[in-house]
């Protein structure tokens, strides 16, 4: 039985969403994820909750992430962790956002999408052999804001229907005309917006022609943002250990980290209360991992270490980790190392190399 699972009812209710335009979804039961007992549907939400999951009993068919925020900066990447979980589980996903728009409440400057999101989606298709699509929420040319009329979401509804139909008939998604059209549009947007990016000196030095997976379809490089540095692993770790404990310890965990000569370091900030990373950073880091660090589908298969610098204290980090906050849950699962103000903590695959998570700690930190 086809069901539409939701996080917030407004995102699937026929009066407020695209579902009234979908042949399959308008008659399907709308169910809150809070009441779900299907294990595969629940497993999709283990990193972050999906907006919409369409499932045939315990068989997820499609996940949808939708947003009407302006598409620049962190706004799209911050939602990426859930797309990764979907791809890891072999479930096709649609990321629904605007190509360009303006803030309704500040200035009238148009903001454009971040093409790294689309490149990372294509990279996921290769890593996980799953369809990852970006569908465009149309912008009203009169107001430069998202369309809200009754037919605004007709294209999304058609794409959803085509994917459900393909699932039911056993057709491969790559052969579905609307999926091909969607992918062609993604390529167009990568080429169009990628051309406006200037190179990062750090990455240009190491990758003169750009990183293999982060180039548009005319081979122009699209480097990571300035918040993401590429560093030599050994001097970086020695410096960080020097700040906290003195000399770097040599053990199985540090040897594992040193086996990768380069590391990607991402600087995050914490929330005002200091209890965890500010909302956009973990999802953004998850996207950068896929695009710039991965060489295989598991977190152990990376070209570079993935390190997050998070300005918080170890005690608070432990408390928030036990509280299972979304941001730290994502960081603890995907990162190799989290560098705090007063400690260095192993996470992700590095934590499993040998016992113990705290690798270095200031002597006065309890």
């Amino acid at each position, binding site marked *: 039985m086809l069901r539409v699972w939701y996080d917030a009812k407004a995102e699937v209710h026929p*009066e407020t969403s695209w579902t009234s335009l979908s042949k399959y979804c308008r008659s399907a039961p709308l169910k809150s994820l809070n009441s779900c007992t299907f294990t595969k549907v629940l497993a999709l939400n283990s990193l972050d909750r999906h907006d919409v999951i369409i499932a045939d009993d315990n068989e997820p068919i499609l996940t949808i992430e*939708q947003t009407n925020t302006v598409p620049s900066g962190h706004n799209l990447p911050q939602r990426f962790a859930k797309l990764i979980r979907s791809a890891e589980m072999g479930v096709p996903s649609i990321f629904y956002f605007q190509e360009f728009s303006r803030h*309704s409440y500040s200035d009238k400057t148009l903001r454009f999408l971040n093409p790294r999101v689309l490149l990372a989606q294509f990279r996921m298709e290769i890593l996980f052999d799953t369809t990852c699509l970006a569908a465009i929420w149309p912008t009203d040319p009169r107001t430069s804001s998202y369309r809200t009329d009754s037919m605004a979401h007709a294209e999304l509804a058609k794409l959803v229907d085509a994917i459900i139909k393909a699932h039911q008939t056993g057709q491969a998604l790559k052969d579905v005309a609307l999926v091909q059209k969607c992918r062609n549009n993604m390529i167009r947007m990568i080429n169009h917006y990628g051309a406006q990016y200037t190179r990062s000196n750090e990455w240009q030095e190491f990758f003169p022609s750009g990183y293999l997976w982060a180039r548009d379809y005319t081979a122009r490089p699209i480097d990571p943002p300035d918040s993401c540095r590429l560093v030599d692993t050994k001097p970086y770790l020695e410096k960080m250990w020097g700040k906290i404990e003195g000399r770097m310890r040599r053990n199985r965990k540090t040897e594992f980290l040193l086996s990768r000569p380069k590391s990607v370091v991402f600087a995050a900030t914490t929330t005002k209360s200091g209890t965890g990373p500010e909302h956009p950073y973990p999802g953004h880091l998850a996207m950068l991992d896929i695009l710039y660090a991965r060489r295989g589908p598991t977190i152990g298969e990376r070209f570079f270490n993935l390190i997050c610098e998070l300005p918080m204290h170890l005690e608070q980090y432990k408390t928030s980790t036990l509280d299972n906050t979304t941001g730290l849950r994502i960081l603890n699962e995907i990162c190799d190392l989290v560098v705090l103000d007063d400690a260095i903590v192993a996470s992700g695959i590095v934590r499993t190399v040998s016992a113990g998570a705290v690798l270095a700690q200031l002597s006065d930190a309890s």
Partner: protein
Amino acid sequence: MSEFDVWRRTTRWLSDNRWQIICANPPGGTAGHYQRCRIPRKDARGGDEVDITAYRNGVLALFECKSKLSHSLRENARSECDKDKLARILRTNPFEQLRLFLNFAHGIEIHPQGVAIGCLAVEECDQTVPSDIVIVLSTRVSGVDVLNRAELFE
């Protein structure tokens, strides 16, 4: 009835009664058929989100929706209840300022002569109704009733 149901019932009632819904934020999610209601705030990043902003005949109404009145009067993490939030927005943004802002944000033309009011939309009045804010009762049975200052909605 959930907060979303109160919100949905109120937006539907306003539309049916010739109110122009300028913007509306459903609880917890993205609405595909309404612009977001965000009013800039000088002392905080991001601004204030209001559940519904609607206009008719010189009345600009800002709504906050909850299933019970006691929830609307309960302080949130910022030590502010919905009633106080609306009062603050209206105090710091006089009608003329809101009119100009909504024109800038959504291209909506509002007549310069008018009044801005705050309204709490609820399904159940489980507390004494405060006199300094309009209460809109949204029920399954009778649709929507305006409990005080009903003349603004006639």
